[in-house]
């Protein structure tokens, strides 16, 4: 298999490698500050102050947490499978970091003949790749929970596995409706389709898939909560029943890796959501802005384009941060579901709804109400 066949024609390790590194660093940084944001947002939602001791506004809190986690005792429970016990959190972390590879954080930057895509890989199977990696993520939890030699851990791990499988189905079905409209699995293509060059200022917002797929979006976001094991679906670490769930026996940075992986997953889930439903790096008035840069601001063609693209990156990250905020907002609002409620919601409500949504989308495309972009993509 050559790289061209997966849609990566200009393979230049230099600049593209830098992009990969930056995305890697940014996802780690965002996950780090998610721990801080979670605590501050939780505090504000509960009329508290939150961490404000370490550094200005407590901004050094994640560093203090990291130091604490690294210096804590490394504990191995008796009878635990040591190799798997270490492998579990590593796998969780690796899969969490891998899934951001296909997400387009922006269009491409132009420097003369050099073109840098703000995306690690533009693969034509991008969405499948994300799905594959995300479903691998549950192995990290499963292996860690099993290797702990603890009933609670095992129960948490089993819950995580069955929950992920159940909700992946509904998620995939919700996604099929989007793919029926886009006709492409490439996240970049899906993003590029969500603009309108009609010249109507707010047209860009209404080209977002969330307005074409409201039902699909609700199903997708509910499933995203379940996939990332966030409240109200954080049954795998349900502390009222299972002590700490799959990470009961974990201490020190191994535990930190699990928590970190969860935040990276949240980051990736919101990134995927903004690409699929909120237009990715598109932003309202973007063509007016580009026109302004090209004609009135007196910039070179390259720089006008680059500023236009960088604004898109800013828009993308604003969407991601809003999404992360929403995840945290939900977490500190809703109580946890019971396990049977979770399963009933997944199998008897979300999956039929998603199938209905596919039929509806198909009907609307056939009737010509939703434009069929598959032909263009082909």
């Amino acid at each position: 298999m050559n790289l061209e066949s997966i849609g990566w024609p200009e393979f230049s390790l230099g600049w593209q490698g830098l992009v990969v590194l930056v995305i890697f660093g940014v996802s780690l940084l965002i996950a780090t500050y998610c721990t801080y944001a979670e605590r501050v947002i939780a505090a504000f939602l509960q009329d508290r102050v939150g961490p404000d001791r370490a550094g200005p506004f407590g901004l050094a809190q994640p560093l203090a947490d990291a130091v604490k986690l690294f210096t804590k005792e490394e504990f191995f429970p008796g009878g635990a499978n040591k190799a798997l016990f270490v492998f579990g959190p590593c796998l969780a972390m690796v899969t969490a970091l891998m899934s951001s590879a296909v997400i387009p954080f922006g269009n491409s930057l132009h420097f003369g003949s050099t073109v840098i895509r703000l995306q690690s890989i533009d693969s034509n199977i991008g969405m499948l790749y994300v799905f594959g990696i995300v479903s691998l993520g549950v192995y990290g939890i499963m292996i860690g929970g099993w290797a702990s030699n603890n009933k609670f851990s095992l129960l948490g791990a089993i819950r995580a596995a069955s929950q992920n499988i159940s909700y992946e189905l509904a998620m995939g079905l919700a996604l099929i409706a989007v793919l029926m409209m886009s006709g492409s699995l490439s996240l970049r293509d899906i993003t590029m389709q969500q603009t309108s060059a009609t010249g109507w200022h707010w047209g860009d917002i209404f080209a977002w898939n969330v307005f074409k797929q409201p039902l699909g979006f609700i199903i997708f976001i509910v499933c995203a909560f379940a996939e990332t094991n966030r409240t109200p679906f954080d049954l795998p670490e349900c502390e009222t029943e299972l002590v700490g769930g799959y990470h009961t026996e974990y201490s020190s940075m191994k535990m930190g890796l699990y928590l970190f992986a969860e935040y990276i997953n949240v980051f990736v889930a919101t990134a995927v959501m903004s690409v699929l439903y909120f237009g990715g790096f598109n932003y309202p008035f973007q063509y007016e802005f580009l026109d302004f840069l090209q004609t009135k601001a007196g910039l070179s063609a390259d720089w006008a384009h680059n500023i236009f693209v960088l604004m898109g990156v800013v828009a993308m990250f604003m969407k991601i941060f809003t999404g992360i905020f929403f995840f945290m907002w939900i977490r500190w609002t809703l109580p946890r579901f019971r396990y049977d409620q979770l399963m009933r919601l997944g199998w008897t409500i979300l999956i039929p709804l998603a199938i209905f949504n596919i039929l509806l989308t198909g009907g609307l495309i056939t009737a010509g109400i939703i434009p069929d972009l598959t032909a263009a993509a082909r």
Partner: protein
Amino acid sequence: MQSLSNRAKKLEKKPFTLAERAYLPAIFQGLTITMQHFFRAATKKQITIRYPEETRPFSPVFRGLHVLKRDEQGRERCTACGLCAVACPAEAITMVAGERKKGEQNLYREEKYAVSYEINMLRCIFCGLCEEACPKAAIYLQADKMAPPRYERDEFIYGKDRLVEPVSPDTRSKRGIQLTPEQADKLRTQLA
């Protein structure tokens, strides 16, 4: 089943409406409530008192950190009788009594004095019984000071260096017997 008291509330088990079963309306209701709290916390003055920097206003009868008083000539009032230690329900007070030597009349009021006097602030429950027990009006609990937080346990054992109030009439504690203006002036000239 027959209710015994006839006060039991009749509950009708209504099936959930579609809106209730769909969760979403209730979720949005909850989200608006938490968001209101978020903006309240972000914009208005928070109730939280950030302790070491801010302190709660003290009541005039607040029982805080102890002080060992001096008399109008700057002498320690405590005679180490041990009544405070006996009265203390938490057994926080220990002392060693000693006899005043010649030439120390300006330091200690009575012939017997406390060579060492220690209060363990981690044991103390700030009940004020020592203050009530003291026949010499020597120990008081201040209304405007608390034992500040420390990292080490032994830093909470307060000796005479931290308990006895200063001689100067201007920096004395506001609790207990106060100097009259004449006494204060006299003491000032003595010190000068």
